């Protein structure tokens, strides 16, 4: 009897460890880096991690919706790039000689954000429509629209580079001398809104239903096409927002802005337990995934790992994290 009990206990501990694998990895990694470089665990770097994560989170939340629909979205990076350019144009000072839109005033920041989110949403409409209406696979649709968005960007911008400046990167307050910018607050607000949408609205429930069984959702009276389109609109808007934030953060908009952001976002989301099978995912998981990715990138900077090895580690961590996460869901036979 006792042997069975102790065996059970062992199984339970193993299960517990597996269930919390992600958090454990994060902790172990953090401890290891801290031992090597104590500054890693100091407040300035923690603030830094929060800031980096805050910048990446909105795009990840957008992609997460698409993945819950059992799809994906490759257009994120290029949409952000285009949106960054638009934001830069709208924000150009009125006297600026290089002003793209001659004359006029720079727009208020709130309006700029709305405008670029709307622009991103437009791409989302095309994405969602092609998927919902023509039953095309998201991979191929967004691969195509991504090309089209980049093409439009090149055509409109002629690869111009425009300096950007906005209060969103200014410090809201300081922690241990480390400034916390406004966009951290904005990311928190956005995350809250998306949480409510996912968990507290009809639309949110419909997303999960469509991702789980599209046919059943249709018969149950869900407007499947509308749901898909809206998910991609939401995603597009978040990419647009990301473009704005990134342009502000780096101080300019250029043609490489956003390139391959979507890959990091997708990786983070999948690491965070949102499954490509569709119908599963949690906001907390997405946050954890984004944080995890930033932690790794930052840890490598602290450890002085760069070059080829950095790629190998990044790839290996994604793979291992996903394997551990999947083990949690794998039904015992």
């Amino acid at each position: 009897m006792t042997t069975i009990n102790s065996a059970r206990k062992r199984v339970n501990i193993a299960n517990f460890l597996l269930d919390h694998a992600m958090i454990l990895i994060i902790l172990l990694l953090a401890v290891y880096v801290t031992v090597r470089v104590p500054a890693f665990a100091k407040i300035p770097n923690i603030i830094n991690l929060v800031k980096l994560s805050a910048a990446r989170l909105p795009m990840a939340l957008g992609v997460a919706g698409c993945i819950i629909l059992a799809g994906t979205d490759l257009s994120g990076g290029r949409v952000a790039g285009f949106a960054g350019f638009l934001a830069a144009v709208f924000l150009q000072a009125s006297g600026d000689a290089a002003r793209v839109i001659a004359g006029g005033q720079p727009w208020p920041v709130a309006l700029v954000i709305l405008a670029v989110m709307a622009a991103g949403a437009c791409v989302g409409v095309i994405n969602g429509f092609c998927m919902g209406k023509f039953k095309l696979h998201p991979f191929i649709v967004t691969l195509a629209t991504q090309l089209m968005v980049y093409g439009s960007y090149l055509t409109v911008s002629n690869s111009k580079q425009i300096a950007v400046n906005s209060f969103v990167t200014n410090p809201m307050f300081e922690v241990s001398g480390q400034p916390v910018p406004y966009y951290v607050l904005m990311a928190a607000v956005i995350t809250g809104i998306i949480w409510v949408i996912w968990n507290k609205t009809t639309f949110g429930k419909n997303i999960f239903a469509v991702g789980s069984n599209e046919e059943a959702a249709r018969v149950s009276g869900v407007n499947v096409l509308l749901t898909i389109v809206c998910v991609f609109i939401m995603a597009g808007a978040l990419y647009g927002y990301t473009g704005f934030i990134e342009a502000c953060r780096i101080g300019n908009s250029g043609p490489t802005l956003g390139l391959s952001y979507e890959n990091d976002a997708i990786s983070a989301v999948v690491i965070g337990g949102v499954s490509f099978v569709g119908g599963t995912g949690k906001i907390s998981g997405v946050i954890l995934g984004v944080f995890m990715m930033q932690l790794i990138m930052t840890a490598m900077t602290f450890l002085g790992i760069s070059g080829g090895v950095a790629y190998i580690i990044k790839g290996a961590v994604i793979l291992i994290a996903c394997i551990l996460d999947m083990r949690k869901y794998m039904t015992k036979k």
Partner: protein
Amino acid sequence: AEDGALVSWYTFGDVYLTSVRTALDEAFAAKGIAVNDRDSNGVQQTQTDDINTAVLTGTNALVINLVDSGAIGTAQSLLDVAKGANLPVVFFNRAVSKDDAEAKAMFEGYEKSAFVGTNFEEAGKMQGDMIGAYVLENYDALDLNKDGVISYVMFKGDEANQEAIARTKFGVENADAILTAAGKAALKFYDEKNENKYLVDTNGTWSSVASNDYMQTILAQYNEANGNMIELVIANNDDMAIGAINALQNVGYNTEGGEKKIPVFGVDAVEIAKEAIQKGTMTGTIKQDAVGMADAVATITANLIAGKDKFEGLNESYKVVDNWFVQIPYAMYTGE
């Protein structure tokens, strides 16, 4: 019909090259040559395929901004395509080889060919020289912790790009040469654990986002309070320099008219970098004359199409080496 030239670009997504492209389009238009600009999007194969197709379209000349800069094998294969179709071919901006002798041999193998550009190591060397001179002149002010060495960070644009490799190497080596000759200590990479002595954009896009993220992370650990503040920033291009400046500004450095300033150096002299230098938030960059290069390329191409002497009517100030290489020199840009 009017003559046409096919210009194959490394990428349309590069700010400096876009300025060359604008100038080149104008220069060709002025010579009555229709231009077919092609974007290789950073992929050599796209360029190779395009050139192979191009010779069948009835174009009169090939103008190539090689994707794999320094890859003589690729350059040779493209030159062979032109030669097979008996079309003039002009390479420009991105080097065809790391070795001038090798390049020379290649160009001498086909009369209707030329190269307009620079020695591809030159930008890095010049950046190193500029940094060396600047640091030497302001040594004490720059050495914030007064430990007698200047700690720096180097941002590399792409792990495997030959130009990035050269700039990463010579940007420091040449500066060190000047400093050590004057009896000062060589530059010291801020993080001893990093054996590569650079931080690289892992997406290979030379982007300001990468340098900005890195710089922000670095500044969380290295600052004046800890006595280990970064004292010098070197970037492979201006984008990365701007990204770093932005992170510095967030912690109160390099603001317009501000007092605390960490010198930041880039390459390319794109518009926003020049603006930053004017405002005093950036220190220096390396400039290659886009208009001059475009003019030289257009002139040589037109000559070759018309069957005239290659270099006829070329701007006198450009140095012509061995009947194949027109050197458009780099110049330092510090806003003066």
